[in-house]
């Protein structure tokens, strides 16, 4: 089986995997990184949202071969040690989560949005497609706005 080397949350890793195995299962099943969640496997629910070279991607549809030599950040790698990312802090301040299952993906999507657009409008926030089946959308919106204000 081919080997792929890439960086995950600041650490270099090498995995043996078929080229077309999706990055989600490489992270979860081979590397034990369980923050990114499965919700659909076909780039619809966005529960797995993580960053590849700083951009939001959905690892359920990224073949591991595409990650080779690149930098992957999952929810586990977002905080700086014990210091939370301002978006994580805003999520706590607004008590956004219910079951929490979608929230790693929501947070990673919000971080990517704020990176490219530090002052998102309601319409910009509307463009986030991540499903929250618990229906926490209103709190997500508030948290993004207050994170934008503090960043």
């Amino acid at each position: 089986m081919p080997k792929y080397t890439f960086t995950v949350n600041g650490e270099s890793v090498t995995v043996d995997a078929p080229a077309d195995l999706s990055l989600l299962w490489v992270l979860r099943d081979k590397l034990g990184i369980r923050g990114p969640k499965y919700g659909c496997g076909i780039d619809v629910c966005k529960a797995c949202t993580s960053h590849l070279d700083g951009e939001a991607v959905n690892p359920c549809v990224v073949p591991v071969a595409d990650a080779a030599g690149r930098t992957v950040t999952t929810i586990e790698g977002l905080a700086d040690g014990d210091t939370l990312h301002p978006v994580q802090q805003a999520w706590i301040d607004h008590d956004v989560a219910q079951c929490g299952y979608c929230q790693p993906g929501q947070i990673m999507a919000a971080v990517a949005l704020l990176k490219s657009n530090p002052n998102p409008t309601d319409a910009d926030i509307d463009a986030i497609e991540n499903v929250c089946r618990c229906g926490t959308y209103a709190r997500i919106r508030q948290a993004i706005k207050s994170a934008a204000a503090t960043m």
Partner: protein
Amino acid sequence: MARSTKESTGIERRRFLTFLVAAPVLTVAADLSTAKTAAAVVPSPPAVAEIADIGDLGILVGLPTAHMIVIEVTDTVRLRLPRTEVGQGITTAVAMLVAEELDLPIGAVAVTLEDARPELLFNQLTGSSNSVRSLYDPIRHVAAAARGRLLAAASTLWDLPTRKLHTRDGAVVAPDGRRATYGTLTAAAADRTLRTGAAQPKPESEHTLVGTPTTRVDARAIVTGQVRYALDLDVPGALPTMVRRPPTINGSVRSVDNRAAVLAMPGVVAVSVIPTGVGVTAETFGQALDGKNALEVTWNRGTVDDLSDSDISAKLRNAAPRFPAPNPLVQTVDADFEFAFVSHAPLETNSAIADVRADRAEIWSGLKAPIIARQTIAAALGLPVDRVTVHVTQAGGSFGRRLFFDGALEAAQISRAIGRPVKLMWSRIDDMRHGRARPASHHKIRATMALGQVLSFEHRVASVETDFRHGIGEILSAAVTHLPIIGNLAFSQALFLTTIHTPYHFGATKHQLSEVPLKMHTASFRSVYSANTRGAEEIMVDLIAEKMGKDPVAFRHEFLKNDRQRAVLDAVASAGNWGRPMPDGHAQGIGIHDEYKSCTACLVEIDARDRAEPRVTKAVIAVDVGKPVNPRGLEAQMLGGLTDAISTTLRAGLHIDKGLPLEGSYSQFHYARQKNTPTDVKIVVMPAHGKPGGAGELGLPAAVGAIANAYRRATGTTPTLFPIHFPVDFEPFPR
């Protein structure tokens, strides 16, 4: 039966409940309203639901074991909770109760989920919005007893009377400033010979934490990705497993035609046949999924292969008896409504880990009814129940779904078949197509009016049968059937009558449920019968008001049964600026719901200029749950109910086509996304009074009514089929 006008909010819930068992005639006191019956309104006698609702019944049956909650006190307090956390915030509410009673920072309270304990009987079932309601007293008493013993231990240590001591910040404090932390006292406090006085929970007036908005205890774990759902656990050797399922509901395997080829695929470790399909076990889920997709299986027919939506609709229409010709001497409003199947679709698909050995089994899963899961799995494996351990994990949503344990059972069957531990995950497609769903229903409602009064209100519901074989049935047969008013009605009818009541004085009020038994995978969905039944009634209320030439809010104000209901109505009408002018294609709508000893009103504004994509732009909700333990968590529950209502009223449902739902992912089942939800949501929590009522399921029905009413007022079209916009706007996945 006479309607009680007695003020009953001060009645102690437990006294009331005992009294309800011992002397049902006095059950009139269950109506928590404080209102005097308005003389001008034709009074309706209390419906069954006003006497004892489903949450009460769970509490009734649960009482004998309710005090078996275990708390361990050191410098921190550990409480093993016989419930599951599915996002509803029960762990936070319980931690607040313990922290309050023991004068501890909430961070010092650790709540873990209890393994299945058969001795807890019905008290380990998470449902019916009864967790806070049933745990509020027991947890306070248990924690107060612990506090009493800690005080007594310090009293012995310092030779000071307990009345001179108090507790603060996790320690007993003496008047001279000496402190002994709970950790240093715990051994002495555990001494059986220690003499303690009777420990009473703090008076609620002294609460400083309970009743204040509190952030979830697991908020940090969630935002850092540290929460461990079932499949995030590391169980040594447990291999990813998925199941190939039949092309129609309840189909079964006749033969696996390419087993060797699939076993030869990269990463595939085992192929196994179980009653519900063919399991593929592999090194990663990606490979298990490839193996599952590559399987060639010959299937036996399922249980509803010939059935499609049109057939189901026809069956339901016929099952709800038609009303006779209207009486020409009174005004009549008739309306019919129909609701499609709805997938529970929790974001974490059905999943479980199982490690089955020759003489024992261990299971991990997010289960709301773990005891019956344990018993059923033991029976399926041929093991004694005490050889099966069932660990309850936090779950990624439920909405009723996780009352069933089919994933845990399949995991056990596959682990047994292949002789190794497995991690089982359902694909999203399977979760929507072969998972559970809220049954479709048909509603015929008639109201008659004369001389400015509503004389009668009758609601005939026909619903595909809801499957209750997860334990709520036992609760009801144990408790409800002893209530003489219900007598020998079939179980689901008892549940229906127990949960549904119309909060208006509409004269002779009658509800009737006819169930159509179809062998499909149904389950109670948040609000069970109320979302559709009461949602439809709130549309009907607007139709009646219109016929009588009255404003929807003014009409409700006049006909609601009590002041609590009127207070939430007034709160949303004023905070939501009811009646403000709206541009064309926009409108406001309102709905009310009263259940679980709680009530709520919802006012929404809708933009329905594009009928295919109407958007609720604003929502104002007022909620009265008696005493809110955590107002912040309560608001979250109401927000969830609102989003469920937006989804199921406007766009989210399942089409059944030849024995299978067509929808297979969120791109097809249109649960709301950010762009479908209001940018402006305001939730008013009414001031605390009395005991906690239920909250988890309360939010949905009022919001369904409000959204449908707003849509009607914006478009001039009365919606009768739900969801309102429901085309098959996708290419279904292959079966």
